[in-house]
């Protein structure tokens, strides 16, 4: 589990876009779960992203016109590997999504068929976490997932996320400017150490 720390404007988003295969770096090497992104074409990178990476963003993670369940199973639409993984674990994609949602909503009482627009931000982040976890991708990237939550919700969310990631055995890349949780991680990396242009820009 990695903690990537950096102030806003330090190149975090660019780095995430490079890891996600959306942006191709001008030089250097990117190796994601055994795939050299500099060698791959756009579509192949899309495939790697779909198969191996789950994302949780700061907010607005969910597609408003889809239900909670539909949002969670979305990655399985684009990745056969994750669909197969989900089926292997729970029998069906929907079963797996329901299982994950139940884990992340310990006291959840409401229907997962509701649309996501009525959810609070904290609930939305849990749905986003379930979506990132479905089909057990090797890499989970969480980009300030708790910054729009209040303190209690933040603590609860972090505990659940850590639980689930330990269960699935994925790698977590946690990106934040806030060092509060950095003691929980195996390794902490500061953006200013890996981005030489930052000094120049400042």
């Amino acid at each position, binding site marked *: 589990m990695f903690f990537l720390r950096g102030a806003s404007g330090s190149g975090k*988003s660019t780095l*995430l*876009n490079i890891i*996600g295969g*959306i*942006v191709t770096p001008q030089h250097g090497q990117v190796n994601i779960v055994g795939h050299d992104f500099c060698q791959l074409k*756009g*579509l192949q990178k*899309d*495939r790697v*992203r*779909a*198969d191996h990476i789950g*994302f949780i*963003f*700061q*907010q*607005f*993670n*969910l*597609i*408003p*016109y*889809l239900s909670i369940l*539909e949002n969670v*199973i*979305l*990655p399985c*639409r*684009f*990745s056969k590997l994750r669909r197969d993984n989900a089926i292997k674990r729970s029998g069906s994609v929907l079963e797996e999504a329901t299982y994950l949602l139940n884990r992340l909503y310990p006291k959840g009482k409401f229907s997962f068929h509701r649309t996501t627009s009525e959810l609070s931000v904290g609930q939305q982040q849990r749905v986003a976490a379930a*979506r990132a976890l479905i089909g057990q991708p090797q890499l989970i990237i969480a980009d300030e997932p708790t910054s729009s939550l209040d303190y209690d919700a933040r603590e609860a969310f972090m505990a659940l996320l850590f639980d689930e990631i330990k269960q699935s055995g994925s790698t977590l890349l946690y990106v934040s400017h806030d060092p509060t949780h950095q003691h929980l991680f195996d390794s902490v990396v500061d953006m200013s150490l890996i981005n030489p242009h930052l000094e120049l820009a400042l």
Partner: protein
Amino acid sequence: MKLRLIAKKSLISRRSTAILTILSIAMSVALLLGVEKVRVNAQSSFANTISGTDLIVGARSGSIQLLLYSVFRIGDATNNISFKSYQDLAQQKGVKWTIPISLGDSHRGFRVMGTSRDYFSVYQYGEKRTLEFASGKQFEGVFDAVIGAEVANALNYAIGDQVIVSHGTGSASFAQHKDKPFIISGILKHTGTPVDRTLHVSLAGIEAMHVNWQGAVKKRKASKALTEANLQPDSITAFLVGLDSKIASFKMQRYINEYKAEPLLAIFPGIALYELWDLMSVAEKALLIISMFVVLGALTGMLAVSLAGLNERRREVAILRSVGASHWHIMGLLITETVLLTVVGILLGLVLLCFGIWFAQPIIEKTYGLFIPVTAPNIREFGMVCVLLIASLIVGLVPAYRAYKNSLADGMSIRS
């Protein structure tokens, strides 16, 4: 989740604009196909006005004018032809039948046509259909009249009713043949041709009306007994000719056109009909072009709505990208939405058209004598729909390309 399903849900979430877009496409499709249907039916009903007749003969004038007054009862003849010439030509070798036509009088806006009894057995319209009687029979006596379906319908006439014919063709004529009323002996079945709007009497009847008349003025004079024998007309307006063999029609046309006794004109009805339709096709083409522009307007409206919504959907696109969607998926999603809107619009348009025709059918038939059936789209209409679908695909490419550009710029970083 299928891409099509996502597109559907996305459209449902924006239902108000989606419904408006669908409606505008539906209305434009209904208009386009409606115009096409009216055009095709008008043309076929037009071409079906007369059939089985090889030549139409009248005094020398223009072919369209002759067609108009002899078949469509529109306008008047410049000159009559003498009954002697008619008799002479009717006896020519190769002539199978002739129907004399004598026009010039009217009854409450409907034209009165003097003709022979052969008319009811020989005259053909549409696919070689002859006239049929809805009730009654053909005229026997001098003062018997047979009326078309529309005359009977509009004036509420029945067998045995008396009608008074006016001199001239205006609907409010002052000179009326009041002294010689006609009695309705038969009512024809509906044909969808000008026959429906005609009052048919014998040639002798036309003569009898005008006995004791000089020019258009009534003269007081003791009348003799009016029998068919002493009511031989001096002239008729035109006549229709049926020949034994079609091959002879050119020869016969030349013979009539070069007829020595008086200047005559013989025309082929098919060619004259074509010329006349060609004349009117300008309006029909203009109508079709206008409705094509309406369709274009609807497509442009859809494009505008789609492009305007694109900015709000950047977030959605970024989310889809982050869960593994490629650029192709994003473009596919937007094109699918456009095509989906168009398909629903087209289907709704077809329903609208069917209801529209069903509703307007009796009105159009009554006013214009044009029957428009509710039918499945023909190949041409199907082609139009296909072109529209392809056009929507092309229109869909524009927002799809824009979304592609946006997603290149945005990546997965989500801007609210």
